[in-house]
């Protein structure tokens, strides 16, 4: 056959090869290579092996091989699909024929779901009753639920993590602004972003959101404080003052542009739009006297900008001068 892909050819296999055959061929070839001194050949072999395994997996799935033969083939499956618990767990194509194992895993999943449900009920109740939920309080609450004896089996925390991640990307609810950093710290999303990668789509969104959040906290302090105040105002039920509406409309819009994913998690989706619309209808008599501010991009510590400082000062002087002239004219 001349249309055999190179990764099978490397192992002298044809399109009929299954995972077992690939593993056997890999083992045979591997024994011919001195890994330590011929790293390049080893890596090339390894690449073919990984691709071949992946091919065998998808190939088998497409062929609809639903019997026990498919058992080892899912091993090579990439994160993402294997980790999305609802599907993976209810997958009729079970890895081990033992129904016992399936039942055990279903029980683990059910227990985690119950515990997460209990946590969320308590958490939302708290969020509804206080102005601000402290992160420490939320974290202690989450830890208490995760420490539940029903969560002892390996894998239960993973399920809880996936549930909370999925919930966060569904859109804001009161308290989510605290649930995000709480979950981040508890599940170590900042220490190990790969955990998010393993959560599929929700993980990808959260990964972006956390990157944006880091940028926010790395800003110059006054900038951050202003923006923090604006986020609070956006989340609040109260209508901001006309002055704030007009002065900060661009900043608010700029922030949403800069932090789209983070805002999606910590704010109701229509809030920025609302602000801008309200700002637009502020009477001209009021708005013309308000200086419109722009979103700045200043970092707390700029190591690299050796002449960032002098430039910054000059700009600030010009700004003061312009303001002075404007105010006096």
């Amino acid at each position: 056959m001349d249309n055999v892909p190179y990764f099978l050819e490397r192992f002298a296999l044809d399109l009929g090869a299954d995972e077992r055959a690939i593993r056997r061929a890999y083992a045979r070839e591997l024994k011919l290579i001195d890994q330590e001194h011929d790293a390049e050949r080893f890596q090339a072999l390894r690449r073919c092996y990984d691709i071949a395994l992946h091919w065998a997996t998808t190939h088998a799935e497409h062929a609809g091989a639903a019997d026990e033969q498919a058992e080892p083939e899912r091993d090579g499956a990439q994160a993402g699909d294997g980790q999305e618990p609802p599907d993976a767990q209810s997958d009729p194509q079970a890895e081990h024929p033992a129904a016992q194992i399936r039942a055990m895993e279903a029980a683990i999943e059910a227990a985690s779901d119950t515990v997460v449900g209990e946590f969320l009920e308590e958490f939302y109740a708290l969020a509804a009753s206080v102005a601000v939920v402290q992160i420490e309080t939320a974290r202690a609450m989450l830890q208490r639920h995760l420490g539940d004896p029903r969560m002892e089996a390996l894998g239960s925390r993973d399920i809880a993590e996936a549930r909370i991640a999925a919930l966060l990307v569904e859109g804001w609810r009161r308290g989510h602004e605290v649930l995000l950093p709480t979950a981040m710290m508890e599940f170590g999303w900042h220490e190990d972003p790969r955990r998010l990668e393993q959560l599929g789509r929700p993980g990808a969104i959260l990964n972006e959101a956390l990157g944006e959040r880091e940028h926010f906290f790395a800003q110059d302090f006054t900038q951050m404080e202003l923006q923090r105040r604006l986020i609070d105002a956006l989340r609040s039920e109260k209508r901001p003052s006309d002055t704030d509406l007009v002065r900060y409309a661009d900043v608010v819009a700029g922030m949403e542009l800069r932090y789209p994913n983070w805002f999606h998690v910590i704010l109701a989706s229509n809030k920025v739009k609302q602000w801008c619309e309200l700002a637009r209808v502020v009477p001209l008599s009021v708005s013309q006297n308000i200086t419109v501010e722009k979103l700045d991009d200043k970092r707390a510590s700029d190591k690299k900008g050796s002449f960032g400082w002098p430039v910054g000062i000059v700009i600030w002087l010009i700004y003061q001068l312009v303001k002075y002239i404007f105010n006096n004219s």
Partner: protein
Amino acid sequence: MIVGIDLGTTNSLIAVWSEAGPRLIRNSLGEILTPSCVSVDEDGSILVGRAARERLQTHPEQTAAVFKRYMGSDRTVKLGKKSFRAEELSALILRALKEDAEADLGHPVTEAIITVPAYFSEAQRQATRAAGQLAGLRVDRLLNEPTAAALAYGIHKRDAETRFLVFDLGGGTFDVSVLDLFEGVMEVRATAGDNYLGGEDFVLVLNELFIQRNKIPQQVAQDSRFVQRLTAASEAAKRQLSESATASISLNVDGAVVSLELDEALLEQSCASLLARLREPVERALRDSNLRPSQLDNIVLAGGATRMPIVRRMVARLFGRFPSVDLNPDEVVALGAAVQAGLKMKDAALNEVVMTDVAPYSMGIEVVRTLPDGSSSYGHFDPIIERNSVIPVSRVQSYIPMRDKQTELELNVFQGEARLVKDNIKLGGLKIPLDKSKSRQDNAVSVRFTYDVNGLLQVEASTEDQPKPYSLVIEGNPGVLSEREIAERLAKLADLKIHPRDRMEHRTLLARAERIYQQLLGRERDWIGGQIAMFERALESQDARIIAPAQRHLGDALAHIESNSFLGHEPDPVG
């Protein structure tokens, strides 16, 4: 002949590959475990192993233990007037093990495979290698401890197709590895760990409990002699609890006997936070290998601390089943190192066996990321080699400078998983000159990371104008000795007087007698004092016919005293 060495936090072992498979070598006392302790004797000579362990209580200022925890740092330990780095202390242990092997094999030993915790960092690995050099050993290979355990386990099952997890809780470190065994290929799929969690931490918890419950005054609790005595007693109690339901820690404090009764429940409750820390690395290793616990055929225990029933119960609760107990967890790592030595020597009995390992952590560089609105976000970590990549591995990635006409690019290399470099470990830096007439797109820099089977990293960078790569030399890190420094320290170590190996047995007995003497009071103390004096006189005669019975006599006396008093036992190192 290549030897395999398990250089442990608490104990070290040496093994060789023989026709009959891996074989452990006994030390001059006839024991398999050599305590990782070093002490300076009254005459200035160096004592290693059990004798040093005994002196930990009588001469804490002259004795060092658990120094594996300082590997890869510039921390020094003072023994009498001399100060030592962890590499040097480790080298003294390695030298003693080497002599034991030479005595057993009857020929010089110059090459070794040394095991390290899988989660050991670059600096810690470099330090281990330097320790080997300082001991006059060429370190052919650094082998990850859980991988070694897997080799020892897998060598008996090489025809099987199996998937298992190694749970390795040693004296100071915790590692988890998930492995696949098929067609003679032993493949590590994922590794995770905690470099600061081990059996020694459980002992510290007991120390703390004893001090709290008995309201020991602070100035006593900080006295190094008291701490060492308490540690030995806690260690003994911890071991006792592995065999019986209760144990007690009893100590002489200012002339009064103070004790703490322990049972399993109290131990478990006090160590709950340590036990909880066992979970995360297991979860991570399983996640990274895309496996569920039910897909594992077996759990293999390694490391002395897995003897503790509370640890075994935790494992059983996590996995919903009991771990395998076919192999002695104290010995399995050293046996695996010997198997690796056999592989390295291309022993015919092993030609159908291959092992592949992975990088335990990610390695990459600091980058600037762009946000959706085009603004820049600094200090991000961009991994070039992802954790659990099969090694040896070599990867290249291209980066463009921040600005047009940039004159230089600073490459900061980090190890870790965190998204921001400030939360990872910096390995070193490198400055690459750029052509300042070029735009940023034309000034791309290729960065190549190469990670070898020993877990050591090499970084190279090249530009279009400068295709000859710049290499990163990870130096100036205070935790890592340079080649020159190693040479200097080698000379320094050569000046040390080592206690002769053939007299070790007597010296160890004396050290033990001194320890017991110090713990006793009144008549018992005087009696042991007399026994010691008699033995010393016998030694002075230098006549084996006089020494041998005196030695037996003193040994019996000590055993008698220990079994009839509240002293507790010195932990018996032969498991």
